[in-house]
């Protein structure tokens, strides 16, 4: 395998393992649909998928731009400062808000948790932050969930998820006390 493809490399050089996996998965699932449900169902499903792709692409582009702006507006160092200094219910609240607004995927969130943990933030605050980022992450909700599942679903799920980081944080506290009384 060549090293990381340069910027000017032709598109096929950028085909990485993940993309190849998705292509194979699509071919496999498409063949199974053709086999089990016939060519008509195959065509209808394919047209449905292409329509979905067409409709979510503008939402995706817009949401990625929102994420990029938020990242510039709220620098990671400022977030780490708010999170490190608080514990208890206040710490959990700050962790919940920070987790909800952290943009980007796991490659953006985990370095922040590592820095916090090493700087001495308590385990329950780190657990609450990861939980909030997972269930309340506004960036992922906007980029992925909103185009597929709609505003009503996202709003209900986010509302339900508000207490969950606190639940996980307190559970972590109980577990830690139980490990070392």
């Amino acid at each position, binding site marked *: 395998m060549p090293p990381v493809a340069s910027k000017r490399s032709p598109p096929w050089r950028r085909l990485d393992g993940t*993309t190849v996996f998705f292509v194979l*998965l*699509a071919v*496999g*699932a*498409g063949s*199974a*649909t053709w086999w089990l*449900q016939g060519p008509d169902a195959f065509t209808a*499903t*394919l047209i449905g*998928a292409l329509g*979905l*792709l067409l409709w*979510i692409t*503008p939402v*995706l*582009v*817009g*949401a*990625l*731009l*929102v*994420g*990029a*702006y*938020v*990242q510039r*507006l709220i620098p990671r160092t400022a977030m780490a400062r708010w999170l490190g200094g608080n514990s208890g219910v206040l710490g959990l609240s700050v962790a919940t808000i920070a987790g909800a607004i952290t943009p980007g995927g*796991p490659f953006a969130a*985990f370095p922040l*948790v590592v820095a916090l*943990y090493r700087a001495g933030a308590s385990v329950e605050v780190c*657990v609450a932050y*990861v*939980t909030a980022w*997972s*269930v309340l*992450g506004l960036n*992922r909700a*906007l980029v992925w969930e909103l185009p*597929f599942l*709609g*505003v009503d*679903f996202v709003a*209900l*799920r986010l*509302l*339900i*998820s508000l*207490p*969950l980081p606190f*639940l*996980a*944080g307190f*559970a*972590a506290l109980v*577990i*830690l006390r139980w*490990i070392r009384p």
Partner: protein
Amino acid sequence: MTLVAYGTIGLLLAATVFAAHRRGDVRHADAVHEGWQQLQPLLLRLPPALIAGVFLASLVPEEQVVAVLGEASGARGILLATLIGSIMPGGPMIVFPLALALIEVGIGLAQMITLITAWSVLALHRVIVFEAPMMGWRFVAVRLLASLPVPLAAGFLTEAVLAATR
């Protein structure tokens, strides 16, 4: 639904662009460049992933899904959704097309929220790829144990909210 989603994104984008404009120290070119950087890998990956997700969803057996995860499945469905969500591999590109298909087939709302919550907090592929190498297994063990009740709480809370609003 279409208009509301486009409107929500449009409003948020306008708000962040406005905030960046007033701050002065945020350059629009940087933000656009960042967005483009994040979009590039998706341009190749998203189409096959989404098509795979939609085809996979068309293979989901409807009656069985409704029987075990439909609205009537209650607490048993919520437990099963937690289990499925925690072992469901793949990122959002695969999971959300599948989720859409499951909703169309007739999975219950509480069961759907449980499934997405379990996939979000327990996601084993993310634990193995990112969390364990960076945070160590001790932290991972404490976090996973503390997260076990989270999807269940989400499911039962949804049922309570739906019961209260009906």
